[in-house]
């Protein structure tokens, strides 16, 4: 842990408020019918906000931004493997009725 990097409490508090704003935003976004603009927009927005929030937590609360490369590689790998599972599996279901 050359990542004995000390993050200032100010940053933590700023991140906390950003997370709060995002939480309120996501609740608000769910009450608006975005699907009429584009089918599935509601869930896309909800997941985009969640991903943004998760990134803030990983990068700052968990010091991902200040971590050694191999730690960052572990993070990327876990997300990548999750994506393999989700996308490859759904690729089956989505294409079943294609002609």
């Amino acid at each position, binding site marked *: 842990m050359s990542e004995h990097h000390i993050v200032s409490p100010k940053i933590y508090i700023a991140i906390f408020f950003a997370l709060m704003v995002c939480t309120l935003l996501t609740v608000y976004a769910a009450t608006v019918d975005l699907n009429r603009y584009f*089918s*599935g927009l509601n869930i896309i927005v909800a997941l985009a906000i969640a991903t943004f929030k998760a990134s803030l937590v990983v990068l700052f609360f968990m010091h991902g931004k200040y971590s050694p490369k191999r730690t960052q590689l572990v993070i990327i790998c876990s997300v990548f493997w999750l994506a393999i599972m989700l996308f490859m599996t759904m690729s089956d279901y989505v294409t*079943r*009725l*294609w*002609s």
Partner: protein
Amino acid sequence: MPLYPEQASNFAPSVDALMVYITAVCLFFAVAVTAAVIFFFFKYRRKTAGEIGVPIHGDMRLEVVWLVVPMLLALTMFAGGAVVYVDFRRPPMDTLDIYVIGKQWMWKSQQPTGLKEINELHVPVGRNVKLIMASEDVIHDFSVPDFRVKMDVVPGHYNTLWFRPTKPGKYHFFCSQYCGTNHAVMGGWVTVMEPADYEAWLSGSSSADASPVDAGQKLFAEKACNTCHLPDGKGRAPSLNGVYQGKVLLADGSTVTADDAYIRESILAPNAKVVAGYQPVMPTFQGQLTEEQILALTAYVKSLQSQPVPATGAGIAPAGKK
């Protein structure tokens, strides 16, 4: 002693050809590597206790060769297999449709005339046969080695399997997906008959069963499907005339082909793929229909394929939209 089963369907020759091709390629590599290992083993055996080998660390050109050559050969195998598989997964239009239901531990089948059989299946030679299969409990698999075909029979889904028998005779069929205690005896015989014999057999066997289409038509009224799905397209739901095998435009803009699986899904999970221009108002019928009833409804919807398609309110996409 035979090394391969009888070739009794249109798929048998092509599957066997794939077998021969891949065996030949593999045999070449297996023999080459084994010969090299044995040759080196004797040629370079240790002569003195302290001897060491020549310190060769590798050769880039060789690595490239044995990366690329097997890759190209593998691609030919893939391509050959893909051609047969795509043919297998795309039944032709003019099939004789037979409904098959698997349950622990027996097979029930129903001819288009309504004639039912258990652990038996009669089909005419030279005719394209399509089995539309559902399971009442666990996953089964309908497999006929002499035809080189098999397909899982999955609860909650339709799977279809097609073949064209090429030789009259009796052929074993098996359950190939492990399904519990009597899995090994869940099988029977496919009897392939001359068309005339088949017709005679059909008419000779007296059957009190209504044909699936008739049974389906009755259900269509009983379950009040006909109150929304009006044939003239003026109902709350699209007309089903001509829908089967047609392209359906969905609310999200995509198009699907209305095959057996789509019809089934629309009965059980109607709001998963709603036709463009309609509201998701249809209730689902999951748990309220037996597999046989769903099959009958499907058969009825399919029988509407030849009915005139209304100008508006059709489930099928307008020709230009394909």
